[in-house]
């Protein structure tokens, strides 16, 4: 090796290749770019709008105080406003909704993809889409007029049997309508189609070869689902849950109707009371400029949280495609 003198040759450089795209491709390229870009622009405009219009209230209250104060009083001087009471209610309602909707949605998706006949499958897919198309106002009215009273015995039963869990306890003779639990149930029904569709989409893409492999080994259908479909769809379940959580956090009309919209940090989710950011904004939007500015600040907080949840969801959903870990 060393004895030989290497012949000096110029280092190889890759050739620069330039393709001249056709006119139609250039135009289409530009159109799609600006369409995609406009989404970003709109998002920034909304964010900026919220930021500038909440300047008044945030400046007067201070960001940290605003984030950590529970009460919301504009009838005193100076006004004492904070978002914590609203935020707690928002998160509690959304979490109840998702906890109730995820198991039902995932099982419904499994039934649609792996158990139902082809004809029933088409009908069910249509019905789930229909459920998603019902205006949230109708859910709210239905919950307010009918479900709220119907749920009282359920709340009572839960409190009687699981009252030893601190947040499920109720004081005697308290009103059990208009609770965060009932709001959570209604919002849960509203986000059910989101979870079902996303989970169904992912489950239906489970590799047919592996499903056949499991069945040909003498597996039950449940064993096949546990071995192939669920591990493959894990990312879809998590992603659908996050999307549903994003929707549940922002849900407005139903909770505006169902909850009294009085900000407080209550640990009794079965009792009357509770408020959410979006519901509170909807019911108080006709106030004086300072109140509106405060509502904008609350909206900004919700905007950031929802954006974060959805971004996490999209990361999880996109990651789920490339074969996640399987355990038997």
């Amino acid at each position: 090796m060393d004895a030989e003198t290497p012949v000096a040759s110029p280092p190889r450089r890759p050739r620069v290749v330039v393709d001249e795209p056709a006119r139609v491709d250039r135009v289409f390229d530009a159109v799609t770019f600006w369409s995609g870009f406009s989404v970003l622009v709109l998002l920034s405009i909304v964010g900026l709008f919220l930021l500038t219009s909440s300047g008044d209230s945030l400046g007067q209250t201070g960001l940290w105080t605003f984030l950590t104060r529970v009460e919301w009083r504009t009838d005193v001087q100076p006004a004492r406003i904070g978002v914590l009471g609203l935020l707690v209610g928002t998160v509690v309602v959304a979490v109840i909704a998702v906890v109730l909707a995820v198991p039902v949605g995932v099982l419904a998706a499994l039934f649609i993809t792996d158990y139902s006949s082809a004809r029933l499958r088409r009908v069910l897919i249509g019905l789930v889409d229909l459920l998603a198309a019902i205006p949230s106002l109708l859910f709210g009215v239905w919950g307010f007029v009918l479900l709220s009273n119907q749920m009282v015995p359920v709340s009572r039963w839960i409190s009687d049997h699981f009252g030893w869990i601190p947040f499920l306890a109720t004081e005697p003779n308290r009103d059990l309508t208009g609770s965060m639990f009932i709001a959570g149930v209604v919002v849960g029904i509203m986000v059910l189609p989101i979870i079902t569709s996303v989970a169904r989409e992912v489950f239906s893409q489970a590799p047919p070869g592996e499903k056949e492999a499991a069945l040909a080994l003498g597996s039950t259908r449940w064993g096949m689902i546990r071995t192939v479909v669920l591990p493959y769809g894990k990312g879809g379940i998590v992603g659908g849950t996050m999307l549903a959580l994003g929707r549940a956090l922002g849900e407005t009309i139903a909770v505006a109707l169902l909850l009294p919209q009085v900000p407080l940090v209550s640990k009794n989710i079965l009792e009357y009371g509770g408020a959410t950011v979006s519901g509170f904004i909807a019911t108080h939007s006709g106030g004086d400029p300072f109140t509106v500015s405060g509502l904008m600040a609350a909206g900004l907080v919700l905007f950031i949280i929802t954006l974060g949840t959805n971004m996490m969801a999209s990361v999880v959903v996109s990651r789920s495609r490339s074969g996640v870990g399987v355990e038997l």
Partner: protein
Amino acid sequence: MTTITVDRARSNGTHPSPTPRLVELIGGPPPGAAAIEARGACAWFGDRLVLESVDLLMPAGQVTALIGPSGCGKSTFLRLLNRMHELVPGAALDGEVLLDGEDVYRHGRRAQEVRTRIGMVFQKPNPFPAMSIRDNVLSGLKLAQIKCHDKDGLVEQSLERAGLWKEVRDRLHQPGGALSGGQQQRLCIARSLAVHPNVLLMDEPCSALDPTSTRRIEETIGELRHQVTIVIVTHNMQQAQRVSDHCAFFLAEENEPGRVIEHATTTKMFSTPDDRRTLNYVEGRFG
């Protein structure tokens, strides 16, 4: 024994003994190879009859090759044998499939029990990609609820029988999806063998593989003979000639369902078949 068998025995002479003692399973299929016989088997997809009145005995411990042009119902027939056909929406069937003399479609018999006794290797290798090689081999046990006290022994033996042990012994915990196509197919064979089936169905197991992997799998088939009844669908005439004892020629005439034109020992089928169409097919004049 025919001369073909002797030739095959010589080419696979490395195998120590034809019937190694298998690792004990609890709740698995009864031991040994089993004969499987179709009687008047018909198959439909929706309203379309794709397979008509197939009578075929596949003797225990021997290799039967199903040959014929594409679309003649070979794969459908294979899937009829282990009750995979009924999983296709709109699929229907008639006739009987006797495993050790008992109809697999008898009322009250579970498809799972049948499929545990009749293993299947598919055209496209389909190991569970994110599962380790070891767990892939053991997956059939868990899925069919069979117990084994010597799992390490079973993993080694199954991979050994499938001719894969030497290549993967040091990386049993790596995912099955990381293997090459030929290795994946042998992993699938090992996975099927781990539950000790009485019959092994192979649906064009080498069609997606290169010649070296194909030869390796053919050697594996040679080594498994006598331990398990093998039914293999193949489009490769040389392969059918190399690996099988018996041959059945399937053919679907235009707008007709598939039928068995002729079946006999492989030697006869490739030298002096009764039907002119069989001769034309095995000599490569059509199909």
